């Protein structure tokens, strides 16, 4: 069984490029060039140099002893929170900014939910001196204020997306519309393994450095790799080099919001059905008429009604397992990680920690959790939800 994209851009029945004709030249240009550029020595040299000296890779693989003692296995944390800008998102933006330069693009657009991808995009644009416009849902602008300020400090323009649920889905719509209106000089840096082919594969490749390092850092294979999934990029990066090692159990953790039996949830793979959203066929949350259901999660980065097509395929072909964690459980897990390991995780990442209690680990089990980002951006939410100022 292949878990990689085929030459037409599909993972089994999922994927493809369901783009309006208006974007055809842009997507065709990317499809024809992304592998060629990625494989060139020039790209490889610059990419790895920047990952090392600018992003701070390799990120450590840390043995979390107190969490291990609590849950019974050996729990290792892949420290993507230590990347420059505070999350894994920058692995992808470093790759895409080099690509955009090689394609001669002058203007960069991006969508962002939690703001981590927006910050990572604004960062590489500053590094390269390119104009940067980030679309962000109005609701997310409110709940991720520190990241909005960071983007502005870095010289990016933040444009609010005011339609629909005013979150990541709507920011993505606006970014795609911008691209339609500016097809010639603009590159769209999508922040996850979503969107039309070749984005899911391209972003997965840039993020695959995560599992490449894990493999090198661990003696032998882990038993579990666990990551949160919004669009699915940190999970795909962490799974990538283990896809063909069937003994490694891969677990993606989505946001259940208030619960999968409520209508305030973002548990796409648990509740969704096949459909086309943001130009690829995947699994999505929709009503019987095919209208997209507005999701809910406490975490802006997981508050998305779709999921990358590769994850839909991993689920359907039973290669990975997907679990859903509620807002309340994610908050509990965030506190636990903070107090047992001295690491405040991003709210997105906290979802991944919450499944430890459900795994029933053996003492010999070796678990890797992808610690996708740090929690600084979420301190407002943590303060409010955990009533920290009353402590």
């Amino acid at each position, binding site marked *: 069984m292949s878990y990689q994209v085929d030459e037409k851009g599909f993972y089994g029945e999922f994927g493809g490029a369901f783009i309006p004709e*208006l974007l055809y030249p842009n997507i065709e240009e990317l499809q024809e060039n992304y592998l060629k550029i990625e494989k060139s020595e020039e790209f490889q040299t610059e990419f790895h140099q920047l990952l090392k000296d600018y992003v701070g890779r390799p990120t450590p693989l840390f043995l979390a002893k107190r969490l291990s003692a609590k849950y019974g296995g050996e729990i290792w944390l892949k420290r993507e929170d230590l990347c420059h800008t505070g999350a894994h998102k920058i692995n992808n933006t470093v790759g895409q900014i080099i690509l955009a330069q090689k394609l001669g693009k002058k203007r960069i657009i991006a969508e962002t939910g939690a703001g981590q991808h927006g910050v990572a995009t604004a960062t590489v644009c500053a590094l390269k001196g390119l104009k940067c416009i980030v679309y962000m849902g109005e609701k997310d602008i409110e709940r991720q204020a520190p990241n909005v300020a960071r983007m502005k400090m870095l010289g990016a323009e933040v444009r609010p997306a005011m339609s629909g649920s005013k979150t990541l889905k709507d920011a993505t719509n606006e970014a795609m519309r911008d691209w339609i209106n500016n097809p010639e000089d603009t590159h769209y840096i999508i922040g996850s393994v979503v969107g039309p082919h070749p984005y899911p594969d391209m972003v997965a490749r840039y993020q695959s450095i995560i599992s490449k390092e894990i493999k090198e850092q661990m003696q032998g294979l882990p038993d579990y790799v666990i990551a949160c999934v919004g669009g699915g990029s940190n999970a795909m990066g962490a799974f990538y080099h283990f896809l063909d090692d069937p003994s490694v159990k891969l677990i993606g953790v989505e946001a259940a919001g208030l619960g999968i039996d409520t209508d305030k949830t973002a548990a796409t793979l648990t509740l969704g059905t096949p459909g086309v959203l943001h130009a690829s066929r995947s699994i999505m949350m929709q009503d019987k008429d095919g209208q997209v259901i507005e999701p809910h999660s406490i975490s802006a980065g997981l508050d998305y009604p779709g999921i990358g097509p590769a994850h839909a395929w991993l689920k359907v072909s039973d290669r990975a397992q997907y679990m859903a964690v509620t807002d309340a459980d994610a908050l509990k897990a965030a506190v636990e990680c903070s107090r047992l390991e001295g690491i405040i995780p991003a709210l997105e990442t906290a979802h991944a920690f919450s499944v430890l209690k459900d795994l029933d680990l053996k003492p010999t089990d070796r678990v890797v959790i992808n610690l996708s980002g740090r929690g600084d951006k979420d301190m407002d939410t943590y303060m409010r939800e955990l009533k920290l100022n009353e402590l």
Partner: protein
Amino acid sequence: MQNNLTQLFSSKPKNLLNIFFTAGYPKLEDTTVILKALEEAKVDLVEIGIPFSDPLADGPTIQESSKIALENGMSIEKLFTQLESYREENPEADTPILLMGYLNPVMQFGLDKFCARCASVGVDGLIVPDLPMFIYEHEFKATFEKHNISNVFLVTPQTSEKRIREIDANSTGFIYAVSSASTTGSKADFSAAADYLGKLRDMDLKTPVLTGFNIKNNQNFKDACSFVDGAIIGSEFIRQIAETTDLKQTVASFVKEIKK
């Protein structure tokens, strides 16, 4: 195959006016009121938008109309019901009707069922902006043909000549030439499109070409028709009907003004 659309084009007419509006907007039951007014005003084609929650290729005006239409309770099933009663009440109506809708709602409805219902209520053609040509050829074409539904593809100033020829070969309705690479309703200057429309005219395509996306007035319409077979007006029409208290009158005078 013949339907009202291919029938219309068989005499190679010029100066065709195609009006786009969103089903179920401004009010749920306005669909057929507008349709009838357009028929009476003798527009050449009518394009009805099926509202979608995430209309990627549309600008603010059509987005807003889609949102309101959905809030009004519009759905594909509802639209077919409205068109059924329209046909019953207006058996003589023969203006070609196209539906424009995003892929996902159509797929959830079921492609074969969708095309069958289109045929039974007298819809002649479909525009699915996020249906790529290669998927159309492999997964959709046979079903469209079985139900005698024409398909319409878009071309833009960025579309290569080779691809325009492929699109021409695959089209059975008309080609929808976007006058500047843009979401619907953008404010680009029409004159910028002249080179491109001239190029399309000179390519001598088998399929008629209509241009759209930022035609607003009689002058734009004439300019467009000096190059290609006709033009499509959407956002401007929607803006006009949004504000009116007399739909029939507004539709009639809008069409008259454009075609004068």
